[in-house]
């Protein structure tokens, strides 16, 4: 027994002498929930970090809330540092903050316009290598500075980074194009198309964050921003979508609005006998009527007609977006990846000239959207006011 005690004591001694290096109390760390990257005029990287302020978080019974009150009562606080590179700037947080920086809970990375311009791939190595950062963090592009976006209030969510993340997730539910998680971005970056698409958020006039659309990148550099209406075209070009509204103008200055419940796109590359490469985009989907402009009777022919209207509306948007993409020469639709997956030999041949080829690539579209439902009502209520809208009167006794 004595022997065991002595051995145990010695063992515990050498344990405590050499270990504990990773020991950090929860109070001795600053929990990072959001990171923002900007580039200053002199080419330095400015990192904005959003930290949780636990005392004021409503989760822990603090008064919380970011609107109203002084900045002291916010559930988060923001600091920024500047350095020649991302990691240098992050290192400086240790010089300005009393506690250790803890990045494992980071949820968003916001890229400011200046950083986007000079390429976000500079950050990829750090973001992928760091053991604390998970690949499920959301990457957000902004036309202003990342600093401003991270500082804006996102009521009712008290912590801004969570608000931004929730906004981005809401967008991602409609289409995978808006899915801006690092895992997804890196996959797009590494694919033959080499064109990641980031969600684009900016502040509105009142200084609140809003989804604006998508940022198109070639490699890591920003090429163009697509606002939401244009981004929809990209959604349909790229694949599955859920619950997107489309409006078709009517003759009487009203419009009919549809909700495309779900749609699915298939892209196939065809090499015709003249060695001309064509892409065929075929889209299938179902839609529901949200509002209807005329008082026409709902019958099969009308369903068919309005289905065609939706098809055209969707087709126009796709064409328009494709045109933008081709002018910008950014293969955000992942055509190259598609080509590589199904015709690897052909892709190898075209690889070198893909950038030139893409700009005038012929694309043909097949769109078929089935309008399936008309909501809770079958006719427009105003139809009752018109004569032909009323059911036939009973004439001469006996029902029809």
């Amino acid at each position, binding site marked *: 027994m004595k*022997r065991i005690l002595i*051995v145990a004591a010695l*063992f515990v001694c*050498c344990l405590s002498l*050499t270990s504990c290096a990773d020991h950090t109390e929860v109070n001795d760390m600053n929990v990072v929930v959001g990171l923002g990257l900007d580039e200053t005029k002199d080419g330095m990287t400015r990192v904005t970090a959003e930290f949780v302020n636990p005392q004021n978080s409503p989760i822990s019974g603090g008064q919380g809330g970011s609107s109203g009150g002084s900045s002291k009562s916010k559930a988060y606080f923001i600091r920024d540092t500047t350095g020649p590179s991302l990691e240098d700037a992050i290192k400086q947080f240790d010089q300005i903050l009393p506690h250790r920086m803890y990045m494992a809970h980071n949820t968003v990375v916001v890229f400011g316009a200046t950083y986007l311009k000079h390429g976000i791939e500079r950050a990829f190595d750090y973001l992928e290598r760091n053991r604390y950062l998970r690949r499920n963090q959301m990457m957000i592009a902004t036309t202003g500075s990342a600093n401003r976006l991270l500082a804006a209030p996102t009521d009712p969510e008290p912590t801004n980074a969570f608000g931004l993340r929730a906004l981005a997730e809401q967008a991602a539910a409609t289409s995978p194009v808006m899915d801006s998680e690092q895992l997804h971005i890196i996959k797009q970056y590494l694919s033959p198309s080499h064109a990641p698409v980031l969600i684009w958020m900016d502040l509105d006039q009142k200084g609140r964050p809003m989804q604006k659309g998508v940022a198109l990148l070639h490699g890591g550099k920003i090429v163009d921003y697509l606002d939401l209406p244009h981004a929809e075209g990209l959604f349909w070009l790229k694949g599955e979508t859920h619950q997107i509204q489309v409006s078709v103008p009517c003759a009487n200055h009203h419009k009919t609005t549809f909700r495309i419940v779900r749609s699915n796109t298939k892209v196939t590359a065809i090499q015709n006998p003249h060695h001309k490469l064509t892409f065929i985009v075929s889209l299938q989907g179902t839609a529901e009527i949200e509002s209807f402009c005329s008082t026409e009777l709902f019958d099969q022919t009308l369903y068919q007609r309005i289905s065609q209207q939706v098809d055209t509306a969707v087709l126009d948007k796709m064409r328009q977006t494709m045109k933008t993409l081709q002018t910008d020469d950014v293969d955000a639709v992942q055509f190259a990846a598609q080509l590589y997956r199904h015709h690897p030999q052909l892709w190898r041949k075209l690889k070198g000239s893909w950038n030139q080829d893409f700009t005038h690539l012929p694309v043909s579209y097949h769109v078929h959207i089935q309008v399936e439902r008309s909501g809770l009502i079958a006719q427009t209520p105003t139809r009752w006011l018109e004569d032909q809208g009323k059911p036939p009167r009973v004439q001469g006794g006996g029902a029809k």
Partner: protein
Amino acid sequence: MSEMSILFALVLWFAQRRQLRAAPIRERVIWYAMVGLAISFAFVISWHLAPNLQPLAWIDRLFDPLTHKLYQIL
């Protein structure tokens, strides 16, 4: 690391000294040889001699060419 290895060796000796005394000479020799080897390794590491030694060089020279040939065949 060298200090730690010596500490461990001492602890080990202390814990097993009765078994060691009971063991035949051959086992004792092996035991001491192993512990000695371990401590010398530890010293080699903590004096930063290890990078110059390349203890696995002989095995590399024996098998690396063969493995590369295998990869080439495939």
